[in-house]
């Protein structure tokens, strides 16, 4: 009676051209997906067989029940299944919300950690900048000091040079001569006043002149 129309529909890979032979030629990732899918399938099928075995172990009621009773029993069992399913869903929701809370907490903590790390990074960068600047300033001050040093030395050299120049020498000689002449004139006036035997201490004008003549002019050099 049976028309054997066993036509296999195809699909081997994920979205590729349907080919049964193509399963082996697929890329490694497609194969992995396929294997994972087959694993899930086999698990589900195993679960089915297991539950069938468990169901068969249940003792079937020996007494012959009326059809109405059987129907009532079936409805009762169906309602039981519904209740168990609902309870399971509620439990799943509760677990999910717990899970969600934990996940949210983890996310928040992660955010905080990332922020702290970012702040640390910024501070370290600032520290690095400050250190760089300090180094630059140190180097700048070193070079400035060096400049000052060379300037000072230059000035000293210039001064020494000046001192050694001829012009200075002549002027110094002239100064010397003038001092000597002035000293002689000082002595001359001193002797004049002392020789005149006048009392110079009483006359303020004379006193002033005498004191002035005492000034040692060699210190002017």
């Amino acid at each position: 009676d049976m028309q054997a129309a066993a036509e296999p529909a195809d699909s081997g890979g994920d979205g590729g051209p349907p080919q049964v032979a193509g399963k082996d030629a697929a890329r490694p990732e497609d194969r992995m997906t396929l294997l994972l899918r087959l694993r899930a399938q086999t698990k589900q099928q195993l679960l089915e067989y297991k539950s069938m075995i468990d169901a068969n172990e249940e003792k079937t009621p020996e007494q012959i029940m009326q059809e109405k009773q059987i129907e009532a029993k079936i409805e009762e069992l169906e309602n039981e299944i519904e209740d168990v399913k609902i309870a399971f869903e509620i439990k799943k929701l509760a677990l999910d919300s717990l899970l969600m809370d934990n996940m949210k907490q983890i996310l928040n903590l992660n955010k905080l950690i990332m922020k702290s790390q970012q702040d640390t990074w910024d501070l370290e960068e600032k520290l690095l900048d400050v250190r760089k600047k300090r180094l630059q300033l140190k180097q700048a001050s070193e070079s400035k000091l060096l400049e000052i040093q060379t300037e000072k030395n230059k000035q000293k050299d210039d001064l020494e040079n000046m001192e050694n120049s001829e012009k200075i020498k002549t002027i110094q000689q002239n100064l010397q001569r003038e001092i000597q002449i002035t000293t002689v004139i000082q002595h001359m006036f001193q002797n004049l006043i002392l020789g005149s035997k006048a009392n110079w201490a009483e006359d303020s004008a004379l006193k002033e002149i005498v004191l002035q003549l005492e000034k040692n002019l060699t210190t002017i050099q």
Partner: protein
Amino acid sequence: MSVLRPLDKLPGLNTATILLVGTEDALLQQLADSMLREDCTSELRVHLANSLPLPSTVARPRIDLIVFVINLHSKHSLRKVEESLHHVDATFFLGKVSFLVTGAGRESHCSIHRNTVVKLAHTYRSPLLFCDLEIEDFRATMAQRLVRMLQICAGHVPGVSALSLLSLMRISENPSLEDL
């Protein structure tokens, strides 16, 4: 008399097999073609039969879903289906059997009352699907639906079993069924 049992064979890897039982050969073939055209990650196998029992000479894979196709225009189709139901083990009716009714669109040609098939489906506690298989769009939609059901019944959808699908479909059933 050979009786079809759902779990007496091991499943083929990535394979899902559906058995369409009905007297409307042309419609069954068209439905089979529509199903095979569907995009599906599992390998589909469609077997057609006019009635049960199936000849034991043929080696066939484990059958995951049986769909009995009844044409409301033909009392013969209903009778054949009722006879075939005796050759199906009780454990099949835990979500792996479904009734598909065609021809409801043309009220005048219907020789079977709608309530009859509704009662039949209720007795066997299996889902009842309505579809005018002669119209291509409806047939394609039904084919899509059957492919999804078949995948679940074959255990290819993790977390959903034939039994849970059955209770899901039961919820959306017409509440007036209780009056029967």
